């Protein structure tokens, strides 16, 4: 990137800064950035870091909406910075903040320890119903069986759905939309047999019933995963498990 870029067009990018070693609380800092119509908000931030202010911190990797690293609040909406273009802010300014509902580590970088711990807790891999040896061949699946969970397997862990979920903001213990989409992706897989284990998480105090069906998580998902659907399908299942436990002789899983 060179300083000659921009064809004379300028946009003001306001960034919520927070430097824990010197700031008591976050503050907005504005930068005038020359841009062309093909530049994303991420490229705008990269211009700032390269030419205007090397102390600005943000996460990014693939620049093509598949790594899930550059999620941030752009004019108040959770979006991927690489998938949002500077040309779409005709007013000539755009405000960029760290993803809502997460602690700010520094500038636009959020702390995602909570999400990673929850991700581990749901065992996000296939735990086969019955182990097959290599000689027995692959685990087969029909297109109809694939269709049941395929949409949920598109999750890229970008956390936009968490920034869209006020219930997670109000109660960070809530397992949340993204984790429920991933949980459902494995539970709904015909090859998997660990649904009862994962339902312990879905049916817990921090589980699906924290959701009040705001539905914004599914609106902002850049991969059309529909996490709200995963959460709500598991409300039905968790309620079913609860009542079934009362009528099964052994008392169910718990």
């Amino acid at each position, binding site marked *: 990137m060179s300083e000659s870029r921009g064809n004379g067009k300028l946009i003001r990018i306001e960034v919520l800064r927070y430097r824990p070693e010197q700031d008591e609380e976050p503050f907005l800092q504005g930068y005038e950035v020359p841009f062309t119509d093909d530049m994303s908000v991420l490229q705008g931030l990269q211009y700032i870091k390269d030419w205007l202010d090397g102390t600005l911190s943000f996460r990014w990797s693939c620049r093509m909406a598949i790594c899930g690293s550059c999620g941030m609040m752009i004019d108040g909406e959770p979006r991927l910075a690489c998938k949002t273009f500077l040309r779409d802010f005709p007013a000539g300014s755009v405000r960029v903040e760290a993803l809502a509902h997460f602690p*700010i580590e520094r500038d636009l970088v959020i702390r995602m320890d909570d999400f990673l711990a929850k991700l581990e807790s749901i065992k996000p891999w296939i735990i086969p119903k019955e182990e097959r040896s290599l000689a027995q061949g692959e685990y087969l699946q029909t297109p109809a069986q694939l269709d049941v969970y395929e949409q949920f397997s598109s999750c890229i862990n970008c956390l936009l759905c968490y920034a869209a979920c006020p219930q997670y903001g109000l109660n960070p213990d809530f397992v949340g939309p993204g984790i429920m989409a991933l949980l459902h992706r494995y539970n709904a897989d015909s090859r998997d047999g660990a649904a009862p284990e994962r339902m312990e998480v879905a049916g817990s105090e921090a589980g699906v019933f924290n959701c009040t069906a705001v539905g914004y998580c599914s609106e902002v998902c850049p991969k059309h995963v529909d996490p709200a659907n995963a959460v709500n399908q598991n409300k039905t299942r968790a309620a079913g498990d609860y009542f079934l436990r009362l009528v099964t002789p052994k008392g169910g899983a718990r």
Partner: protein
Amino acid sequence: MNTSDSRRPYVRPMAGWWRRNPFFVEYMIHEATALFVAAYALVLLVGVMRLAQGEAAWNGWLEALRSPASVAFHAALLAAISYHCWTWFRIMPRTMPPLFVGGKRVAPALITACGLAAAVVCSLAVLILVWGATR
């Protein structure tokens, strides 16, 4: 803010969260219209109580329903409950397991349309029933 952590992560406050995004404002309006559903249930409940108290009480209740204030209140109830119904069925496809008809997945818009159609049909059926019973 967690001061025991040397990294000093900053936790932003949640106060006024629902005013931050038009989507949240709409959600709160939807949730608030549920109170109108409860209010109408109370109106009906009072009717049942008045009925139990005898003919004079019942007729008094019917008379009260005809007052302009009551008619205006019921018009407001109808508007709020219609909005609640529309927003409720709009989110219904997100709350259901996938529905397959003839091997094909039913589109969310069709599920919403079916819900709304069912609400309209039920409302008309009750209206015709009550109309017929009071003629």
